[in-house]
């Protein structure tokens, strides 16, 4: 075997050697392109995160002003009977304004006083009312209370207001800036952790607004979606994979399911509006309807993932079960499904993560309304987190800019957690046999 097959006069080894340089160069280029693509992708993701976090992190603290509040019984409870209704209807604004006047007696004119009172949020009085209702023994006492400041003051304290700009371009006047600086010098103004961001519902006042309502709405919507889409999706996948005969009809069903996964999500919203709200008469803006619409959207994802998972169960297990005398249903429920569940779960989690981030279909069914109350169940009107972000992004107040970014951070945190959970589950349950 001395004559090589590809005889060109030169030894094969020499030809191969000559071509090596080009081949390796090609490989290196290909590797570089792949690496470059990854770096590009990572760069953009990092830029996205840096942008959002830098804008949003300050929303997690809220400026408060410390006041010596005298819970004047003459204002709160003139009759002295501690009647709850009377306590609720008292004018607590007087209680917050009194200490301000004492601190800054130079504000005498009506306009000055109004400017002084604007340092505090309109919700400050309400929070005092809550304190008294919870503990009526406060009446007659003097306490040091950290009261919530107005959103303009919040922006000023966090450094978002340009002090060098001319006064007309600023929303806070020099006078107010002077007062705030005085408070700061005395240590009476501070930024505390913004719990209201997580507990309150939406509000026109940025300092009082929170994603509590949106989180509840998202939670109820996702619960409805999960409870509906997982059983239906798994059952459909089991039927298509195990029981359906191989004919044109089932082929058509398969094609349609794959197509549904590609339909724009807003179309599902239109369907929800027409069918669920118009025809079935379900309540508008309710997580129930949102859940139904999102179920339609995630069903193809779950069906496709479940089928792949069922296919991956080796036929030897099925044969073994059938050989022992198990019926088809027993084979599926006792042997195939337990082995396929991890893959189905992964598909479900990914489907839920997608549903969590959807806003377009929910806009159509009315979850875009301004809803203040936190929903108590799936039938109360509510909004969801992505829609809340959309609404806040439209609001003019400066303070909503940081809150929008903070809400996005919370949403991203949930999505990342869910995706990590899916990956962890998949790794843990891979190839248990």
């Amino acid at each position, binding site marked *: 075997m001395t004559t090589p097959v590809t005889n060109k006069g030169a030894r094969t080894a020499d030809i191969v050697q000559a071509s090596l340089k080009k081949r390796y160069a090609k490989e290196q280029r290909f590797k570089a392109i792949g690496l470059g693509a990854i770096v590009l992708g990572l760069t953009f993701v990092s830029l996205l995160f840096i942008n959002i976090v830098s804008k949003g992190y300050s929303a997690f603290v809220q400026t408060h002003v410390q006041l010596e509040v005298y819970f004047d019984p003459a204002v709160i409870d003139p009759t002295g009977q501690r009647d709850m209704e009377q306590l609720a209807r008292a004018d607590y604004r007087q209680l917050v304004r009194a200490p301000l006047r004492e601190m800054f007696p130079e504000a005498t004119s009506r306009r000055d006083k109004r400017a002084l009172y604007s340092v505090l949020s309109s919700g400050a009085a309400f929070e005092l009312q809550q304190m008294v209702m919870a503990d009526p023994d406060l009446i007659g006492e003097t306490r040091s209370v950290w009261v919530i400041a107005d959103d303009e003051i919040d922006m000023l304290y966090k450094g978002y207001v340009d002090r060098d700009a001319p006064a007309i371009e600023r929303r806070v006047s020099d006078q107010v800036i002077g007062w705030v600086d005085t408070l700061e010098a005395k240590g009476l103004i501070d930024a505390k952790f913004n719990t209201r961001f997580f507990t309150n519902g939406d509000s026109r006042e940025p300092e009082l607004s929170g994603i509590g309502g949106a989180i509840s709405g998202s939670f109820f919507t996702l619960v409805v979606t999960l409870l509906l889409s997982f059983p239906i999706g798994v059952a459909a996948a089991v039927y298509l994979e195990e029981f359906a005969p191989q004919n044109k009809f089932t082929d058509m069903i398969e094609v349609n399911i794959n197509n549904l996964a590609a339909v724009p999500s807003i179309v599902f919203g239109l369907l929800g509006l027409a069918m669920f709200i118009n025809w079935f008469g379900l309540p508008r803006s309710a997580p129930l309807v949102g859940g139904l619409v999102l179920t339609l959207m995630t069903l193809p994802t779950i069906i496709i993932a479940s089928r792949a998972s069922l296919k991956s169960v080796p036929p*030897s297990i*099925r044969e*073994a079960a059938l*050989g*022992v*005398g198990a019926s088809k249903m027993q084979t599926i429920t006792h042997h195939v499904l337990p082995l396929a569940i991890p893959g189905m779960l992964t598909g479900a989690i990914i489907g839920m993560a997608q549903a969590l981030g959807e806003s377009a279909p929910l806009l159509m069914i009315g979850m875009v309304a301004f809803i203040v109350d936190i929903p108590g169940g799936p039938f109360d009107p509510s909004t969801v987190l992505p829609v809340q972000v959309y609404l806040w992004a439209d609001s003019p107040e400066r303070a909503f800019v940081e809150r929008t970014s903070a809400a996005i951070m919370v949403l991203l945190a949930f999505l990342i957690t869910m995706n990590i959970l899916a990956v962890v589950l998949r790794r843990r349950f891979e190839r*248990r*046999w």
Partner: protein
Amino acid sequence: MNTIETATMDQDAVATGAVPAATDQAKKELDKDFETVGQVRVANPRMTTTAVNVYYGDKHAIKNVNLDIGANEVIAMIGPSGCGKSTYLRCLNRMNDTIDGCRVTGELKLDDQDIYDKKLDVVPLRARVGMVFQKPNPFPKSIYDNIAYGPRIHGLAANRTELDEIVETSLRKAGLWDEVKDRMDQPGTGLSGGQQQRLCIARTIAVSPEVILMDEPCSALDPIATAKVEELIDELRQNFTIAIVTHSMQQAARVSQRTAYFHLGNLVEVGETTQIFTNPTHKLTEDYITGRFG
């Protein structure tokens, strides 16, 4: 009429004159309505099959086979690859139902009951006719649950004690009890190949079948494990009827009382094992035994 595809080796052999024309002639005989040579029927059969034909789509895989499986005997089915012995075996417990496009005609009876009757429930049939597969396939459950699964779903045990008894008896019969009695909770897939196959045999006998079908049970095992399984088959013969497909003629000679030789879908010859291996009647049988082809 389907033509039989003859092995190319044989065509070459015939062309070069190495194989006598008699073999060629013998093969041509299979084309027409061929009648099996030897004792097809037995005195007290457990299963009887008459005029069995199996089609995979258009392919005629089993051609007009008549065969009895005698009670408490081991019958070995041998033949070259692709001759249909596994297909025939799978007909006996209707495992061919799971294959799309597979059609079975003919009369197959278990204790005088037609097993392909439309009204017959296939689930109890498979409890009475068990199967051990080529590659060991224990369930990904504990060893205990592997054995207990069959009795559980058929309701063979009234309580936990009875179930424990069934599990222990099956494992003892399969010769596996001493090796696994201390680790009954561990997964069945953690055992060695030979142990897994014996586990599968124990699983099959746990439902007390009448017939056990074995499809090349030792082909994935090493010689020592093979020897253990063959020993087991010999012991099981006292209580069960066993039909074993094997591509090892030595194994067939060791374990079986009757042997059936299949060739490309036809049952060519059947008879006492010693007779088949020392003095076969049909030419094709003789050629296979002596190693002319396989």
